[in-house]
């Protein structure tokens, strides 16, 4: 075999020049970079969509709870709300008890990324309930309030924020 494929002849065949190798590497690098960028963008979009969906779900669930509360406390003695030092939502008996309420919904979905070793982040929810005499006029007098502007603001672990608004009226509108 050594006679047929002499070592010196095999390894002395002309190979690629440095320029050719560099051009090939550059072309490969450009192709791989393009592919990687598009894949990363796709992954980011998917993660962002996932996060938006979860944000909407978290905000909506709290908003639906708020929408179920009466405008005015039905009890003789109004139960204390968040600003009166009651942190438990279950004790709230009217819409305005939620004003200022904040909580943290833990991230259950593993597809929302977080840094390993750090505390598991969550979606921060914050509620604002404003008394309005009419939709445009803010009041602090409950007796004059005919409307309530409710805003549930949610902040994702990534820092993205959005607000889900809701209007409540003192008198239910019947169909």
């Amino acid at each position, binding site marked *: 075999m050594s006679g047929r*494929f002499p070592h010196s002849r*095999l390894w002395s065949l002309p190979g690629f020049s440095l320029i050719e190798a560099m051009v090939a590497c550059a072309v490969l690098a450009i192709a791989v970079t393009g592919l990687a960028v598009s*894949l990363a963008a*796709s*992954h980011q979009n*998917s993660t962002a*969509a*996932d996060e938006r*969906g979860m944000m*909407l*779900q978290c905000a*909506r*669930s709290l908003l*639906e*709870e708020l*929408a*179920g*509360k*009466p405008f005015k406390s*039905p009890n003789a003695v109004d139960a204390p709300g968040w600003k009166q030092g009651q942190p438990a939502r279950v004790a709230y*008996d009217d819409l305005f008890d939620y004003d200022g309420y904040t909580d943290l919904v833990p991230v259950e979905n593993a*597809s929302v990324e977080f840094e390993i070793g750090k505390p598991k982040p969550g979606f921060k929810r914050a509620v604002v309930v404003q008394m309005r005499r009419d939709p445009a006029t803010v009041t602090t007098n409950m007796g004059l309030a005919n409307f309530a502007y409710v805003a549930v603001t949610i902040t994702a672990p990534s820092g993205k924020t959005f607000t889900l608004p809701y209007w409540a009226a003192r008198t*239910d*509108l*019947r*169909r």
Partner: protein
Amino acid sequence: MWTHPKHHFRRRGLSYPELCLGLAITAIVGAAIASFTFATAQAWRNTEAGISAETLTHVATARLNDIVHGARLLGACRGGSLDTPGLAPAGVLLWTRDSNGDGQIQTSEITLIGHDPVKKQLYIHTQPAPKIDITWSYAAFTLPTAIDSFAAKGNRQPIASHVDGAAMSVTFDPASADRPRLNYQLKTTVQGKVERFNGAVTMRAPVSPPT
């Protein structure tokens, strides 16, 4: 005039070690490309499935919100199950409107939101107004057996597909002033990806039960 040198056409072919080396490198590169393509395709499929499941739950949620927000009363509710297919499927009756303004519940004014575990659908079921619309008492409207008897006739329209399991419950305390709320859980499977979704929807303007 330039001519091809004769030796130019007599270049030797690949030697055996060269061929083996070439094949080995080609196989390694091919395997790498194949695994990369497979992983990419898999990730793409997962993303697509996730987006499909999310869209599906959003559409179902929007439809449920639309129906329940505008409803007047919640009636019979059957729990159903997310993971036990043998149980009676989830369903809830709603008095959606008072078409004739008589303040009474009639068959044509009722909507059933239910789950069909065989077709894996969440559906709404209505009965068109017959010549004489039957008036329901509130007790009959809240009776669990009313779900099946109502579902026996009428039209069914799917509002979400790929729903493997559904569970529903009603939160309503007559002693409190809180509005009734429908809590629901959906389990969807799209392209093998299982998603669970918890939602709640509160009636915006409920009325008192008719007497």
